């Protein structure tokens, strides 16, 4: 509705700048940031699959990039963003049913989302690190 500007300049409703930061607000922003990050990260998925489809040399290039220090940091961030966005999405699906809007529930869901995403990411990386040594 950006084009529907009338001749009169009407006041805007209060926006981000006047509110004290709150956990639920920050989680909403992070949900959007992780979504946008996963958008860019989809290139990594495409790269991985295309490398596997292209042959051993292309796959070796991907593997060396993915197992480098920067590669691991990026993939760790990608894992966390994916899990955080998924748990945040679950929260939104709960809200879509009309539940979870109470003050205590909101706070609980926000904390569960944040803590859950960090714990699950670390668990996945421990499992991944264990498999890294074992399989061929």
């Amino acid at each position, binding site marked *: 509705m950006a084009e*529907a500007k009338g001749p009169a300049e009407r006041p805007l409703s209060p926006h981000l700048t006047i509110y004290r930061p709150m956990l639920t607000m920050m989680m909403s922003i992070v949900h959007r940031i992780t979504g946008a990050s996963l958008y860019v990260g*989809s290139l990594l998925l495409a790269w991985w699959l295309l490398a596997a489809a292209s*042959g051993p040399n292309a796959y070796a290039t991907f593997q060396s990039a993915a197992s480098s220090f920067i590669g691991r940091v990026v993939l760790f961030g990608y894992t966390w963003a994916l899990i955080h966005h998924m748990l945040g999405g679950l929260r939104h699906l709960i809200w879509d049913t009309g539940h979870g809007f109470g003050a205590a529930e909101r706070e609980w869901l926000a904390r569960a989302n944040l803590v859950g995403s960090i714990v699950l990411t670390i668990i996945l990386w421990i499992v991944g690190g264990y498999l890294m040594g074992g399989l061929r």
Partner: protein
Amino acid sequence: MSPPPSSMRTPLSRVRGYGSAKSGTEHFIQQRLTAIANIPLTIAAMLIVISLIGRNHAAVAQILGSTPVAIIMLLFIISTFYHMKIGMQVIIEDYVHEERAKYALLVLNTFFAIAAGFSSIYAILKLSFGV
């Protein structure tokens, strides 16, 4: 779209009677539908990725190309890339108000999602059919 300065009509009276654009909830519903699908598909895809960590190329190519894994990965790619395309569209529409930049970014968004999505789909199909 701004009215001539001489217009005495209010913005409300100009749009009254046009009704909705008849497609306002389409993306909202598709965003939720793909979100629901993404949960089991992402968990499955993460398990597949974890099971492939540290394996050599031959093993990865064989497992990714096997029928159940390939089907799960294809569904995962279609659902997530569509979800991603709608999500980025919302972000662009929220923050980019200059018309030309907005439409340019919306076009690029669609191109990116389709190009990256179909490249991923092509890779899975190539591994499956072994060509």
